[in-house]
């Protein structure tokens, strides 16, 4: 009997094998032959476009990322990279490699489901051919495979999942334990650890029901279960060791990326039981923007009633199977189904989740790394396998029992249901992510690569997701796969070290605010090791909040340090914006423009040690510091918040100067747009996600006069932080401005709190609401000193909450308890006032890092007091700041020359006019000769007199239209001599030769700072690295003769050991598995 169950060794000799072959042929046609020659990518683009480099990256713990390097959390791509690279090496075209890879995965999945069903039913009632064929078909012909598993990171584990359960079952069988353990190890190695192994980790949850099933149904002893599981766990750990070590190395980066992308509540907003039962519920399917749906090819699942109804076919078959079958495996299959569905549903509905949903949300919010598992739809393989096998068993029972006529209806109905539920496959939409790279891009990439040195290419503008007009939404930037040199670009979210993000996004926001003046771009290019600037006019800048092409072009054309060297593409090709966003001047721009940097940077550089600029603030100051003449691409700088006190002392002794800035602002970042952020907040408020570095003392924070603080549950829109409608606007005494919040019906429950400077007797609180159309706050609860009163607005805009007797308190909280009107606009309060408390004034307090350093070390204090100290203030455009009001403190008296940039073309600055007040005294300025204009028509002005500021606090209040102010201490900024070092580079090491030097230097590698980088010079360890130039790795190199320097990322060694262990284990398991299979076959023959 057992022999009869064994699959036939000869092909196409049974009806079953012929049906399966025919279905495989259909899969071949659908996956491979539709749209031949068109390239679709289902995961990282470089996997297919540059498989050699991608494969090399999988055994590196540091990769280029968005150009300035990042720890790698994708070593787990190794098995996939090997397969794709092999296809590429055999000369298979890219489009075919992608198709064949997906076809293989689909066939492997089908074969696995079939084999698992045979194994589960082998003991008493073996599955017949109908069930076997149905299992194979149902597991791969469902909407989940089309939508949820449309990418390799999901489809690969999906395909191998049945094989994993098969191997686990065998490992629990004492007669096949060793072979089973080998199988578990090999399957898990093949699954890899893509995206930190999230999907395989989900699928491991299915092992528990399998173990319980083995205990209950197969009567395995506890010892057998323990031995099988222990062996499997060891095998899994050893084969996965390489990516576990790699992921552990990149934990910070992986967490930052997870924090910045979709939230658990977004993911759970659509994953209902109805949707997951039909194999959908993946949030991207339901989303879109003004360019259209995110997944346009799959919208038919939501719009077409017939297709929507057909998608329930598998769910109906599964329940039918549970009802009809008598097989004992149905308990296991039901358990898998319920487990998988419950996971896929996750936190749905996010407003009122089930206990499981609440537990998941709690874990995502509180447990480190748990956030990586927020897309619970990725557990789909568990539910789909359970449903497919239940459905297969049910179909077989029906086939046996029903008449031939009924069978015909059954087969026809099921086939029609499945076919309709795969509609995107029949109309050529099965493969999403078509990649049709314009010729101008490949030409530009070829030209850029021909330079042949280790310098990078700075690509502008920065981006959120990689949005090009010529391709669908994508997270990964295709440019990195086309240009083999280091392509440097900023992103609105962190995908590398925090400080790299801080610098690059800060610079990008400065450019977007119109603060690019002469030499800004060329100076930044030099700091980031680039010799070319590539202007990308074909990006969807309006969706990313990036500066428009006209602005960026003006910045580049006005920079004498940049020379246009090539134009790519036709004028206006993929350049024009959408609708009213079209600028007539831009339609004449080509999509790509290459500029050569006349004083370029390089990967490995020697900067002078004695010439540093020490910045209280962050790298966002660079555009303004270039305007101020303090930075030029050659002078090294350091952020004081990141510099060790000892190094600061050394730098000051060697002649470094200090710059106080109003950068490093404490505010929530908007990870979706480059031109928005949350409002500046006080030191007491913890922003959810911020770019600011260091502690509140190292940051520019909001301070208030009149009140101690004003905070709120939220402000602005639910679509991300925005400075509009910040809480301060409710206490500023201006009825035209308001704290606004709670769009799309989220107003109720929002609160605003005013903290007073001291306790006082409060008998009433006056609250006003703004005159806005649509929804409005209609009732509030005012809480003072533990007492609350609820007051409705009625038809008026002003209410008075009375407290009789008066309450002594130091805070007032106003909570929105009711909102009227059904519109989706924000609601808010224009004024909350307590009689006797004046309207508040808001200031930005500059970082106190210098004071803190001085307070901690008397000798350092003396050096800081003696150091030339400039003050550089910049209007925070992305916070919507109209006028600057700043407070800061000086350690010593300074006599300042004043320079400023104003963007008020109506004023005539040829004669002295009021520019700002300094500690209440008016300071006048007039246009600097010769008069120059910035990219937005700004005028440079010079103070009509000097200003002397003594030790202690000071307040500067600029007039409207003043964009930047420099209080110049008058020291000379000497031209620095830098030496670019030709280097031999790999992703994790840099080697070069340093010429003889008569004084100390700074050895700087243009890669994002990570303390795990190490360096030697002439064989001598240079110690822990410093952070230089706002992001880079640097070491102090003592004077000495010519010598070799070697820089490397230390975790790479540990990773290589782990990789060796994994590969040896895989080889061992494969060899052992083959020997066991051979012995088993020989025994069977005997």
């Amino acid at each position, binding site marked *: 009997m057992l022999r009869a169950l064994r699959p036939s060794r000869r092909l196409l000799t049974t009806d079953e094998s012929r049906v399966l072959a025919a279905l495989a042929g259909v899969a071949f046609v659908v996956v491979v032959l539709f749209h031949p020659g068109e390239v679709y990518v289902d995961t990282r683009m470089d996997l297919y476009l540059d498989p050699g480099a991608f494969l090399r990256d999988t055994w590196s713990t540091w990769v280029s990322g968005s150009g300035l390097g990042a720890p790698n959390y994708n070593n787990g791509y190794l098995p996939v990279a090997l397969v794709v690279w092999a296809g590429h090496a055999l000369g298979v075209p890219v489009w075919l490699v992608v198709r064949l890879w997906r076809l293989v995965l689909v066939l492997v999945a089908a074969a696995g489901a079939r084999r698992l069903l045979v194994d589960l039913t082998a003991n008493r*009632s073996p599955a017949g051919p109908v069930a076997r064929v149905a299992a194979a078909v149902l597991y791969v012909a469902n909407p989940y495979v089309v939508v949820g598993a449309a990418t390799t990171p999901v489809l690969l584990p999906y395909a191998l999942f049945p094989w994993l359960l098969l191997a686990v079952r065998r490992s629990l069988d004492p007669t096949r334990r060793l072979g089973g353990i080998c199988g578990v190890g090999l399957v898990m190695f093949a699954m890899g650890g893509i995206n930190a192994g999230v999907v395989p980790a989900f699928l491991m949850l299915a092992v528990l029901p399998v173990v319980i099933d083995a205990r209950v149904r197969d009567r395995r002893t506890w010892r057998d279960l323990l031995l099988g599981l222990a062996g499997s766990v060891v095998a899994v750990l050893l084969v996965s060791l390489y990516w576990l070590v790699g992921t552990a190395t990149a934990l910070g980066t992986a967490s930052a990326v997870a924090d910045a992308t979709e939230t658990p509540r977004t993911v759970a907003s659509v994953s*209902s039981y109805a949707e997951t039962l039909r194999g959908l519920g993946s949030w991207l399917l339901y989303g879109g923007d003004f360019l259209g749906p995110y997944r346009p090819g799959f919208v038919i699942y939501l719009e077409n009633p017939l297709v929507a109804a057909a998608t329930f076919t598998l769910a109906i078959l599964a329940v039918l199977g549970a009802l009809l079958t008598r097989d004992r495996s149905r308990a296991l299959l039901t358990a898998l189904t319920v487990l998988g569905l*419950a996971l896929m549903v996750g936190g749905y509905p996010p407003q009122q989740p089930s206990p499981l949903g609440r537990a998941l949300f709690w874990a995502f919010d509180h447990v480190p790394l748990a956030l990586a598992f927020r897309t619970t739809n990725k557990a789909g393989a568990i539910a789909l396998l359970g449903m497919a096998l239940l459905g297969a068993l049910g179909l077989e029972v029906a086939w046996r029992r029903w008449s031939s006529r009924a069978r015909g209806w059954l087969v026809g109905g099921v086939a029609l249901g499945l076919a309709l539920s795969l509609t995107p496959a029949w109309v050529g939409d099965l493969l999403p992510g078509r990649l049709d790279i314009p010729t101008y891009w490949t030409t530009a990439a070829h030209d850029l690569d021909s330079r042949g040195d280790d310098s990078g290419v700075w690509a502008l503008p920065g981006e959120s997701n990689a949005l090009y007009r010529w391709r669908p939404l994508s997270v990964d930037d295709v440019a990195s796969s086309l240009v083999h040199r280091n392509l440097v670009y900023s992103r609105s979210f962190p995908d590398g070290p925090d400080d790299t993000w801080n610098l690059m996004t800060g610079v990008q926001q400065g450019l977007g605010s119109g603060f690019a003046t002469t030499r800004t771009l060329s100076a930044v290019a030099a700091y980031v090791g680039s010799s070319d600037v590539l202007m990308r006019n074909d990006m969807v800048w309006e969706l990313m909040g990036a500066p428009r092409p006209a602005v960026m072009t003006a910045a580049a054309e006005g920079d004498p340090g940049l020379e246009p060297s090539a134009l790519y593409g036709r004028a206006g090709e993929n350049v024009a914006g959408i609708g009213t966003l079209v600028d007539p001047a831009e339609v004449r721009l080509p999509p790509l423009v290459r500029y050569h940097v006349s004083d370029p940077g390089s990967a490995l550089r020697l900067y002078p040690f004695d010439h540093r600029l020490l910045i209280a603030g962050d790298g966002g100051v660079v555009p303004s510091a270039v305007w101020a003449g303090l930075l030029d691409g050659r002078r090294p700088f350091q952020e004081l918040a990141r510099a060790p006190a000892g190094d600061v002392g050394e730098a000051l002794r060697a002649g470094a100067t200090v710059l106080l800035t109003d950068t490093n602002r404490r505010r929530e970042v908007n990870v979706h747009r480059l031109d928005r952020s949350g409002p500046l907040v006080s030191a007491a408020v913890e922003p959810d996600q911020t770019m600011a570095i260091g502690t509140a003392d190292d940051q520019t924070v909001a301070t208030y006069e009149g009140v101690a603080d004003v905070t709120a549950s939220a402000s602005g829109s639910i679509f991300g932080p925005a400075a509009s409608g910040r809480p301060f606007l409710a206490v500023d005494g201006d009825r035209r401005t308001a704290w606004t919040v709670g769009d799309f019906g989220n107003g109720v429950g929002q609160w605003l709190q005013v903290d007073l400077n001291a306790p006082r007797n409060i008998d009433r609180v006056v609250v006003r609401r703004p005159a806005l159309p649509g929804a409005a706050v209609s009732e509030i609860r005012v809480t003072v000193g533990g007492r609350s009163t609820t007051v409705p607005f009625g038809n008026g805009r002003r209410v008075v909450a009375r407290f009789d007797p008066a309450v002594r308190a130091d805070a007032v909280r106003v909570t929105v308890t009711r909102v009227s009107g059904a519109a989706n606009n924000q609601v808010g309060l224009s004024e909350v006032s307590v009689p006797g408390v004046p309207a508040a004034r808001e200031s930005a307090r500059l970082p106190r890092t210098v004071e803190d350093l001085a307070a901690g070390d008397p000798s350092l204090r003396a050096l800081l007091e003696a150091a030339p100290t400039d003050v550089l203030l910049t209007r925070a455009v992305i916070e919507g700041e109209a006028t600057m009001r700043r407070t800061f403190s000086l350690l010593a008296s300074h006599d300042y020359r004043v320079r400023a940039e104003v963007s008020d073309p109506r004023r005539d600055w040829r004669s002295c006019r009021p520019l700002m007040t300094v500690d209440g005294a008016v300071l006048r300025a007039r246009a600097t000769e010769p008069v120059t204009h910035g990219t937005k028509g700004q005028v440079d002005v010079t103070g009509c007199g000097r200003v002397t500021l003594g030790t202690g606090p000071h307040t500067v209040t600029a007039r409207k239209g003043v964009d930047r102010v420099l209080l110049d201490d008058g020291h000379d900024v000497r031209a620095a001599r830098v030496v670019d070092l030709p280097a031999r580079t790999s992703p994790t090491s840099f080697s070069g030769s340093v010429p003889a030097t008569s004084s100390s230097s700074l050895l700087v590698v243009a890669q994002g700072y990570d303390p795990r980088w190490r360096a030697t010079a002439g064989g001598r360890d240079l110690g822990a690295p410093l952070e230089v130039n706002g992001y880079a790795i640097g070491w102090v190199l003592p004077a000495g003769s010519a010598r070799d320097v070697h820089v490397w990322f230390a975790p790479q060694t540990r990773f290589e050991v782990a990789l060796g262990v994994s590969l040896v284990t895989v080889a061992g398991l494969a060899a052992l598995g083959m020997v066991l299979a051979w012995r088993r076959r020989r025994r069977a023959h005997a």
Partner: protein
Amino acid sequence: MTRWRRGGLRAALVVVVAGVIGGTLGLAAALACVGLVASGTVAPRRLLVGSLAFAMALPVVWVISNLSRLGTYSVALVSEAPAAQWCGLLVVVTLLCGVFLEPREYDA
């Protein structure tokens, strides 16, 4: 373990699982299923018939409850209809109860 004790344990497990994954509605549905089975009113296999009925009704419920929104895709969540969600949850809970409240496993 007696048959009653084993049945009670299973019932308790089913109720807990249904409550954890289905919230109040899941808990109520599971309690109702257990009550019906324990009182002898309904055999577990009839629960599976109910489950099948819910599953077969789901496409109709889904389409009808989304009728006004079909074809108007923007950022709309076409699948939000509460009736479809409840039916989906009930499919799962009755499936769970139907399979696991069976007094003993059997083979063909």
